[in-house]
């Protein structure tokens, strides 16, 4: 018997086996070669030939080594291709993860496109969510914030959607309510802060409050105390003040001995009784609070806002009903104050304070969150298509795995692992976008974007991002996973290597594209409608020319300026001085200018046009303005004249009205010479105002409000203590503020100029929320369009490469390039058309939720729908054209040979 050991050992040598293992192998293989040798000898072979024959079993030198290496060294089990092999779930998960990472390394383009798409989608989604959470969802920083209810009266029939309360009515509410444990009244206020070491006089914003105010919020001061009964102001200057944390730090350096000391507000000493904790700045970033006496008999100034703390279990709707009943009862008992009261005649609106604060921002945010979710869905459809395409090109690999015993669940798990890994990586990348966006949102002005400064990336936001990533990852992976785990072996063997798609794959891909187009249409229509609203609003006739107009407010402290003569003298000489500043063309004085806070209104009755019982009395905005005001702000005179210097206390009391008021009372005749008066009851002849001029309508609060009626009175007759200086310049007006301040200082060094802004900025600012929504929604819609274009391009390209043979045959049989091109384009356009049709139906339903954000355009605006449908179809045509051109370049011979 020949000796085999040497031969075998020589072949095993490169493996460096463990000696015991090596000798076992040598023994087993020797045995085999012995058997073979004996067999060959039995068949009559010569010794030499039989030996060579047996050694032939070992084949070339390297074969044995090559085959044994994976077994004897770190053998990798064939789990990747086969069944679980009895592994525990986490082991196969770990394996799937490693396998996925390996495959991303070998297909970096696929992985980066997917991560980028996920990143944009999830990042944008997380950003909007963080805004929604910061602004809407996060509770106000007070104990039991859900119990805080804000409420006010409403008389839409009089053009008064919101009516504040007089102190007399507040006292009634406070004494009668059963549902609110506490209720408080407050009104915005401003004061000029002066004092040694405090720098220039500064105007600070605060509130006059009833003593219950801090109790309602349940917030205790950081230092000192809040107000007690008896400290309230009764006619005159306040003597006690509570300071905000920010004012305390800003102006007094956080001096802990401030409590008990006096500061100078409006030139009067006021004692600081307490300092509130950081973050308490209700209402409107208030920096101080002074107590106001709530006179049960005062019904003159309907200027107090109300807030209460509801007892547990009480809703805003309950409060609304209770307050309406209390108002009815009171109105019926006080016919001297309320005209024609009746049961059920009062309307009180109540809502959680948080909703009241957020106000106009809530709906846009919800709309944006919906929009961004749509973008994410579109992105998902794109990625699902990518995964599907990739899975299809791996169908042979998957078929082999199936043959080797991998169950459908293993295959599906592998594919799902891949897509979830991609989405998690995308979420991480998206966080960059989120952090950057949140930083930008925090910079937005808080007075226009309430609570936006509270937006943070907190653990909840991070958890949201992770959850969205997991869900979208599964969403993108599940369809391909189901598809591929049902891999059709027959098809896989036949076509797997070509990577073409089966009918069901193609149907699924087509479905994704249709979905994308439908969702994109919804987004584009939404963006289009908002854009049209914005254009309507910005193209609106404001009734004045905001260009080159600077406004600023000056308030004169009361006893120092004690009579209207003194007040008028001050403002007139200031106007005179400002007029002399180079570059100034007109200077006007007005008690209010458009787009500023506060809007004094009054009932207005025309002579001979008194409203009959039961008819609503007209309410108009009342403004006290100087003769030059109309020229300064740029409101054109339509009829008659504006005020003159002679319209003073000695002359006839005159008024200028806007065209809406003129048309209301005197629809078919001239208003000039007609007489109006305030209120409902007083008819003494001295109260009549004679209309001398009609001017253009002006919108006061916002550009999208219903046109208000305006009545102007002459500053020469009705001076007010707080007025805006309206300065029109020949060039950019921002630079004038310093010169104006210098002129004020020359007249009175203790007076600050505040609320200084250009009218153009005011107009821009009033559209700020709309602009932000437009920019965001517009970018989402564009992203959607781009994704849809990429999606349809991918699907059509793939379908073209799968049909190269078909096109080859068609062209061989005489089809023209145009025919083939048309065939491909038709596929693209059909998909787009299906998407557009579904999209139009969905958009027609969904745009109703935009209604309140729209201006001058209907939710179902067919022009917008039509343009968007055209844009989408054109996009589909364009995206399909490139693959279509490729299809026609197919050389019939090559195409057929490629089979």
């Amino acid at each position, binding site marked *: 018997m020949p000796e085999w050991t040497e031969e075998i050992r020589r072949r095993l040598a490169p493996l460096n086996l463990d000696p015991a293992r090596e000798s076992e192998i040598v023994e087993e293989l020797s045995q085999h070669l012995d058997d073979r040798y004996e067999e060959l000898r039995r068949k009559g072979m010569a010794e030499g030939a039989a030996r060579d024959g047996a050694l032939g079993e070992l084949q070339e030198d390297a074969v044995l080594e090559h085959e044994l290496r994976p077994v004897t060294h770190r053998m990798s089990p064939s789990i990747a291709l086969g069944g679980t092999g009895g592994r525990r779930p986490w082991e196969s998960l770990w394996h799937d993860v490693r396998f996925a990472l390996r495959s991303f390394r070998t297909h970096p383009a696929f992985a980066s496109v997917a991560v980028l798409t996920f990143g944009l989608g999830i990042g944008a989604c997380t950003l909007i969510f963080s805004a929604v959470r910061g602004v809407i969802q996060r509770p106000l920083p007070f104990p039991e914030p859900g119990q805080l209810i804000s409420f006010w009266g409403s008389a839409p029939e009089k053009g008064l959607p919101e009516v504040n309360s007089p102190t007399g009515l507040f006292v009634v509410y406070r004494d009668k309510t059963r549902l609110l444990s506490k209720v408080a009244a407050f009104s915005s206020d401003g004061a000029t802060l002066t004092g040694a070491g405090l720098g220039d006089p500064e105007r600070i914003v605060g509130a006059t409050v009833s003593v219950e105010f801090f109790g309602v919020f349940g917030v205790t001061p950081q230092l000192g105390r809040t107000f007690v009964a008896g400290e309230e102001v009764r006619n005159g200057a306040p003597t006690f003040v509570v300071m905000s944390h920010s004012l305390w730090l800003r102006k007094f350096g956080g001096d802990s001995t401030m409590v008990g000391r006096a500061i100078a507000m409006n030139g009067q000493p006021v004692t600081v009784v307490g300092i509130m904790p950081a973050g308490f700045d209700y209402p409107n970033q208030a920096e101080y609070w002074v107590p106001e006496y709530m006179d049960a008999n005062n019904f003159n100034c309907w200027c107090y806002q109300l807030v209460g703390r509801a007892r547990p279990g009480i809703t805003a709707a309950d409060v609304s009903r209770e307050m309406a009943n209390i108002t009815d009862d009171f109105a019926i008992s006080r016919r001297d104050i309320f005209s024609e009261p009746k049961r059920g005649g009062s309307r009180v609106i109540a809502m959680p304070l948080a909703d009241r604060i957020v106000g106009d921002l809530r709906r846009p945010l919800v709309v944006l969150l919906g929009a961004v979710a749509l973008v994410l869905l579109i992105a998902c459809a794109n990625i699902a298509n990518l995964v599907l395409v990739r899975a299809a090109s791996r169908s042979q690999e998957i078929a082999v795995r199936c043959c080797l*015993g991998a169950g459908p669940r293993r295959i599906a798990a592998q594919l799902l692992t891949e897509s979830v890994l991609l989405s998690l990586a995308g979420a991480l990348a998206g966080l960059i976008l989120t952090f950057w966006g949140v930083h930008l949102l925090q910079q937005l002005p808080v007075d226009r974007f309430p609570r936006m400064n509270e937006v943070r990336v907190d653990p909840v936001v991070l958890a949201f991002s992770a959850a969205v990533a997991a869900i979208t990852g599964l969403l993108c992976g599940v369809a391909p996973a189901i598809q591929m785990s049902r891999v059709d072996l027959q098809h896989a063997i036949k076509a797997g290597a070509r990577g073409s798609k089966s009918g069901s794959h193609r149907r699924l891909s087509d479905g994704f594209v249709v979905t994308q187009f439908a969702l994109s249409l919804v987004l584009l229509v939404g963006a289009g409608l908002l854009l049209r609203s914005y254009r309507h609003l910005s193209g609106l006739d404001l009734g004045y020319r905001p260009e080159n107009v600077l406004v600023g407010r000056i308030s004169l402290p009361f006893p120092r300026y004690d009579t209207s003569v003194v007040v008028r003298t001050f403002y007139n000489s200031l106007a005179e001085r400002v007029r002399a500043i180079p570059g100034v063309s007109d200077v006007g004085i007005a008690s209010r200018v458009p787009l500023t806070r506060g809007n004094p209104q009054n009932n207005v009755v025309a002579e001979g046009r008194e409203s009959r019982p039961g008819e609503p009395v007209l309410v108009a905005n009342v403004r006290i303005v100087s003769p030059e005001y109309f020229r300064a702000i740029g409101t054109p005179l339509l009829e008659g004249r504006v005020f003159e210097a002679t319209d003073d206390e000695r002359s006839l009391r005159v008024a200028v009205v806007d065209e809406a008021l003129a048309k209301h009372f005197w629809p078919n005749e001239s208003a000039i010479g007609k007489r109006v008066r305030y209120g409902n009851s007083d008819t003494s002849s001295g109260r009549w105002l004679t209309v001398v001029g009609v001017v253009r309508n002006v919108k006061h609060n916002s550009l999208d409000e219903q046109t208000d009626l305006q009545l102007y009175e002459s500053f020469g007759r009705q001076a007010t203590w707080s007025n805006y200086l309206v300065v029109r310049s020949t060039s950019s007006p921002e630079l004038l503020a310093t010169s104006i301040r210098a002129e004020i200082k020359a007249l009175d060094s203790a007076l600050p100029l505040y609320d200084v802004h250009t009218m153009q900025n005011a107009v821009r600012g009033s559209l700020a929320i709309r602009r932000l929504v437009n920019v965001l929604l517009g970018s989402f819609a564009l992203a959607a369009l781009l994704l849809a274009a990429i999606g349809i391009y991918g699907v059509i390209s793939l379908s073209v490469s799968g049909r190269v043979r078909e096109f080859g045959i068609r062209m061989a049989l005489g089809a023209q390039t145009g025919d083939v091109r048309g065939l491909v384009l038709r596929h693209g356009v059909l998909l787009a058309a299906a998407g557009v049709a579904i999209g139009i139906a969905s958009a027609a339903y969904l745009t109703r939720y935009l209604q309140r954000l729209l201006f001058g355009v209907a939710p179902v605006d067919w022009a917008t729908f039509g343009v968007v449908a055209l844009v989408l179809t054109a996009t589909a045509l364009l995206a399909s054209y490139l693959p279509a051109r490729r299809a026609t370049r197919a050389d019939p011979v090559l195409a057929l040979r490629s089979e």
Partner: protein
Amino acid sequence: MIHREMKKGSAELLILALIEHQPRHGYELCKLIESRSKGVLTFHVASLYPLLYRLEKRDLIEGRWVEKAGQRRRRYYRITAEGKQVLSSQRKSWKDFMAAINRVAGVSHA
């Protein structure tokens, strides 16, 4: 080429099937495959034993030295419970696979 690929894919199945009911040693396996396939499939030392070691490492088969009187000792392989599971699942897959191939072949020749 195809022949070799097919052999590679099916080798595990063949070995598991042959030791399903009784333990066998390497040479015996070689001979059985060759005779039952009427010489179409053949295995050499260099490919058979690495495969056996691989299956052993995966706990699908178990090798044991057996000494018989008057003979050198031999290593016999028998199937494990896990091996039986894999065998039955592979049998089924191959059955489907073959059926599929048949259907495809049938279609393409028609």
